[in-house]
């Protein structure tokens, strides 16, 4: 049992890195503290290389099935590290301007990456729950990090209360599943459900409560009320982080949980998830239309994206599992590109209303083009990631008999195109009140450029990414 413990080396080193950054913050003089961000990035890059070298092609169970080290885990481990690097790069200016102890901020981001990776690896209910709590607690702190800003503090309080509430529901659901089946390991749950030919009422209620709890974490409608306020109040890089990484982690957990543990009872839960998906995408898109603040707009748009991802969960099969991960990867590039522009714009102007983007095409042509491409990708237009990832995901769902849901999802993309076009109209058609150029730091320029390239890459040449994703799918669903 202990001979393969070295496979956890990246996790141990990640925790160590977090504490080193935290401690170094106390020792460094204020003018050199900005180095902490770069140190975190360097550490993450090293860890990414180490993870890939050490874990490639492995498929092992640690601690007697509590922790799966497989392609699925490796995919998400790499995914979260990459997102973490981008978020830290995007935070450099915020940290320099607002934080006297940036080490705390970076250390908590690192710890949250640890939690997210463990969520993707968890092969047992309590491990999953504890990993989720590590992520949640990190995020509670990160959301309220802009200490001088009342909105940030309000967001933090809201997030803690709703987060704790949903954790309790989730935990209760897990306990009911345990009551009904007598085990918390995914493989044993699967066997018990298969033997019982579906879920008993106790297990069914437990399952539903698990869905509700995860629904809160994903911000699925009707459990989304916290999201827009929290997104608006949190520091911008953290908003980007919430919209991509925390949703991604919730899906990483849910996908493994439902594929490995609850698959035999799929008839008992897929209708609930399908309805949840339909409501989530529709409400998210409709409420996004009247938004005036770009953060709130992106918050609601990301709620609708959760709806699309839930389609994959409802129609769970090898094809939709790959489609879900592909869409998540494309969405990550896209949303980080969009937030990159919003962050760069905010850093220079301090503004975040959509009307403030008037004339951006003249004030900074590249940023306007990048945001346009990101929004088109979110709307699912070709050459960008969104077209292919949605097509892949929804075609898979349709094949499982969810043509109506896939059609609704595509129709929702049309609704979303409307409000994205409203932003694009501001940038390209409405003239600027203040025609001065927008200055963007080289770091943000680089981040946005790389993310846009990623959006193209996924949209035009998805083969390499799909190979990795198919390997991940094979790890959790034995057929493909």
């Amino acid at each position, binding site marked *: 049992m202990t001979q393969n413990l070295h496979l956890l080396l990246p996790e141990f080193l990640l925790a160590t890195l977090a504490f080193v950054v935290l401690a170094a913050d106390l020792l460094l003089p204020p003018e050199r503290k900005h180095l902490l961000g770069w140190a975190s990035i360097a550490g993450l890059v090293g860890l990414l290389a180490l993870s890939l070298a050490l874990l490639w092609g492995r498929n092992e169970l640690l601690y007697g099935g509590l922790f799966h080290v497989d392609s699925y885990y490796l995919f998400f481990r790499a995914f979260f590290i990459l997102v973490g690097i981008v978020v830290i790069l995007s935070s450099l200016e915020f940290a320099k301007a607002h934080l006297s102890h940036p080490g705390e901020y970076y250390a908590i981001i690192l710890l949250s990456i640890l939690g997210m990776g463990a969520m993707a690896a968890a092969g047992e209910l309590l491990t999953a729950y504890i990993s989720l709590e590590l992520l949640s607690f990190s995020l509670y702190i990160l959301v309220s990090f802009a200490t001088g800003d009342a909105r940030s503090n309000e967001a933090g309080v809201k997030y803690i209360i709703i987060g704790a509430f949903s954790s309790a529901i989730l935990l209760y659901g897990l306990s009911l599943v345990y009551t009904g089946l007598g085990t918390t390991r995914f493989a044993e749950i699967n066997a018990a459900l298969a033997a019982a030919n579906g879920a008993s009422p106790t297990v069914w209620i437990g399952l539903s409560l698990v869905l509700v709890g995860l629904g809160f974490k994903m911000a699925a409608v009707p459990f989304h009320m916290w999201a827009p306020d929290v997104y608006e109040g949190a520091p911008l890089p953290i908003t980007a982080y919430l919209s991509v990484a925390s949703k991604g982690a919730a899906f990483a957990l849910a996908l493994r949980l439902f594929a490995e543990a609850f698959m035999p009872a799929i008839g008992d839960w897929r209708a609930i998830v399908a309805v949840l998906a339909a409501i989530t995408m529709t409400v998210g898109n409709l409420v996004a239309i009247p938004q005036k603040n770009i953060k709130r707009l992106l918050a609601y748009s990301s709620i609708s994206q959760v709806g699309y991802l839930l389609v994959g969960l409802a129609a769970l099969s090898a094809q939709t599992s790959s489609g879900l991960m592909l869409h998540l990867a494309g969405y990550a590039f896209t949303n980080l590109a969009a937030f990159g522009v919003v962050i760069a714009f905010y850093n220079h102007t301090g503004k975040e209303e959509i009307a403030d983007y008037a004339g951006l095409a003249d004030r900074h042509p590249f940023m306007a083009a990048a945001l346009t491409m990101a929004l*088109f990708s979110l709307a699912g237009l070709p050459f960008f990631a969104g077209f292919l990832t949605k097509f892949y995901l929804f075609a898979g769902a349709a094949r499982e008999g969810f043509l109506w849901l*896939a059609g609704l999802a595509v*129709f929702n993309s049309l609704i979303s195109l409307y409000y994205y076009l409203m932003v694009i*109209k501001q940038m390209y058609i409405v003239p600027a009140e203040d025609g001065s150029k927008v200055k963007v730091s080289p770091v943000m320029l680089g981040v946005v450029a790389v993310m846009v390239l990623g959006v193209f890459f996924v949209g035009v040449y998805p083969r390499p990414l799909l190979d990795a994703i198919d390997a991940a799918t094979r790890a959790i669903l034995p057929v493909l």
Partner: protein
Amino acid sequence: MELFDSYVLFLLVLIPFAGAMALAFFPTSNHRAIRAFATSVGFLTLALAVYTVANYDYGAGGFQMEHGYLWLTEPLRVSFGWGVDGISATMVLLTGIVAATGTLISWNIEHRPRDFFLLFLAMVSGVFGVFVTTDLFFLLFFYELAVVPMYLLIGVWGSSTDFGTFIRTKEYGALKLVVYLVGGSVLVWVGIIAIYITAANAGQPTFSLTTLNTVRFTRTFQVVFFPITALGFGVLAGLWPFHTWSPDGHVAAPTAVSMIHAGVLMKLGAYGIIRVALSILPEGAEAWMPVLIGLGTVNVVYGAISAMGQRDLKYVVGYSSVSHMGYVLMGIATLDQMGVTGAVLQMFSHGVMTALFFAVVGAVYDRAHIRDMTVLEGLAKRMGVTAAFFVVVGLTSLGLPGLSGFVAEFLVFVGVFRTYLPLAILAVIGAAITAVYIMRLLAKVFFGPLDTRWEHLGDASGREIAASSILVLTIAFVGIYPTPLINIINSGVTTLLSRIPGI
């Protein structure tokens, strides 16, 4: 040449796209170089399009100059493949002509010309993509690529209409157009996915058109999904009652965009009906044809009557497009060899004709800065050449023998006479109304007494004359000697109709 032949269609898509990418690196201030480059790209694609049609062997028929690569493996099996049959070869030629003349017409754009040509060429690339692809996934891919740049092209470079009580801003036109067309593509999407999963359940998970043409779909499936797919494409073809985006969008668009939009993009819709709905779901087509031909007749008559009531020159042309696309829809719906051939020829003829229409109206608008028919008078005295072009295109529009419109409409009428006689009479009435509004327009705007306000107007420039001449020559050539084009179209139509069981 073997090698070149199998890649020429790919080059048709690649060259405009690569040209658009290259433009991004041009300095914004060097307008001359930008225009010259974009025009060269336009004419290069025209040359390739002519080469494609000239080398199409209509005796052999079927898809030719084919080639492709598997782009995604199982479970989707999408291949990036290309090939043309008689129908798409004709459309490729049309696109080449309109794209090349469109770049030439757009030289007078002074506001951010680099971005304009970049989006324009990207759109052209998408249009070529739809016509040459042999895979449903890429058909949808290029279809949306062709539609989306429209929003910015119209929104940034377009013009608004303001008659006091009747106001249509360019933002309105742009948004309406994009929402309608992407809305149509939602239906197309559902249709394509339904076709895919049904084929997959029959053991053929593929999007390849040639493979799908061999799959047997049940009659129920065909009858349910034909209208969904055909309606989705029909929105783009200006099918009544989903045509309203078309006049509003065309009017708001800058000249070259109106040209390619009315000239080529509306044909994408009709082409989609033929290539996807009709070809893959022939039994469904048979069941629904009475409805489609009825709607097509409404298009013809309603479009013509609406055109008669317009004040804005561009709205007249916009509604006349709706009317003429009605002939295309009627021709397709006859499912008759002559009728469908006429429909495809009408797509070509109307594409060239309406491009010329918009080019001439654009020339007037650029000089007078107004398109109001009640104000413009006697322009022929100052703009003789422009007026001459307008006369030619007007006569084509009302179907004068010797010009391309006559041949196409004649074939469509013959097809309709054979199948749905009463509707043919209505369609002829539509043609008569066309004569009324075209003649009235010519008499009022060009041949009345010259209003002193228009004393200062100059005539068409050398570029405009060159572009218009290309279009006029095409119209006249097809009108006088349509045989080569008809032969090519016929070969495609024969294969298409052979799939319909009742015929």
